[in-house]
């Protein structure tokens, strides 16, 4: 499938219907997720702040997923010098940064009433902040170098080095003493969360992933159009 989509024409044909389809699936998942989230009873410990979890956890998961996509696309762009992979990497970065900002902001708004602090230099929070800095560094590096090919290679190396941060984020709650709660969904013995919270959380998580998929495909399309326009402009200037 990846080999087939590596052809920009085939990718544009595929993404033309796949992007709106992913968007529609995202809406179909997020709408009931929001409804069930607001209908859920207050948690016995967190009270109604549990409703922040339905937007915080999916944002955090999507921010990491987006970075994995950025890293994967950067690998193909760097090793195989694939222009479409480079376009996909460039398209993923601002979306990943936006989801990371959401994870940090919503986490902070949950932390203030529950922990008594907007921010703590905890391993999980700090590693997610590093993730945001990696996204911003990637975007800044691409913008700072005029030669797009060089900029793409330099940014791809940064993206690949930054992949090491993903397992650090995931295992930070196990490796260090952390104020942040540990893994409560994907754990041996099953989730620790009651179904009344788990179902809206699952719907929202899947909805966020499909929303990212729709936006990523559309931004990659925009990047392909941009490169096509620039190439045509150069040709026109040379005539």
């Amino acid at each position, binding site marked *: 499938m990846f080999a087939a989509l590596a052809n920009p024409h085939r990718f544009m044909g595929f993404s033309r219907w796949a992007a709106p389809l992913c968007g529609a699936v995202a809406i179909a998942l997020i709408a009931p997720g929001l409804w069930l989230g607001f209908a859920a009873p207050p948690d016995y410990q967190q009270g109604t702040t549990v409703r*922040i979890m339905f937007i915080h956890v999916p944002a955090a998961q999507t921010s990491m997923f987006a970075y994995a996509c950025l890293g994967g696309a950067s690998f193909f762009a760097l090793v195989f010098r694939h222009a479409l992979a480079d376009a996909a990497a460039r398209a993923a970065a601002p979306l990943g940064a936006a989801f990371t900002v959401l994870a940090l902001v919503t986490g902070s708004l949950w932390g203030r*009433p529950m922990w008594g602090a907007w921010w703590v230099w905890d391993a999980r929070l700090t590693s997610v902040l590093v993730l945001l800095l990696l996204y911003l560094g990637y975007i800044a590096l691409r913008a700072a170098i005029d030669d797009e090919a060089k900029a793409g290679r330099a940014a791809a190396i940064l993206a690949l080095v930054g992949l090491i941060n993903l397992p650090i984020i995931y295992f930070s709650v196990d490796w260090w003493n952390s104020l942040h709660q540990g893994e409560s969904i994907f754990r041996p013995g099953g989730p620790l969360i009651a179904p009344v919270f788990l179902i809206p959380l699952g719907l929202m998580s899947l909805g966020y992933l499909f929303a990212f998929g729709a936006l990523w495909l559309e931004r990659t399309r925009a990047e392909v159009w941009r490169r*096509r*326009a620039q190439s*045509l402009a150069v*040709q026109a200037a040379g005539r």
Partner: protein
Amino acid sequence: MSDKYAVFIWPAYGATALVFAWMVIDTIRRSAGWRRKAERLEKDEAS
């Protein structure tokens, strides 16, 4: 929902709505803009 935590919950949902709105609008605007430009240049090249 108007309990003592509403002051934290609504800003969280508001920030999420704003960021999603930015992502959707910026993505559609970029895609449509570059597509229009590329198609115009293709037409110029053909003529």
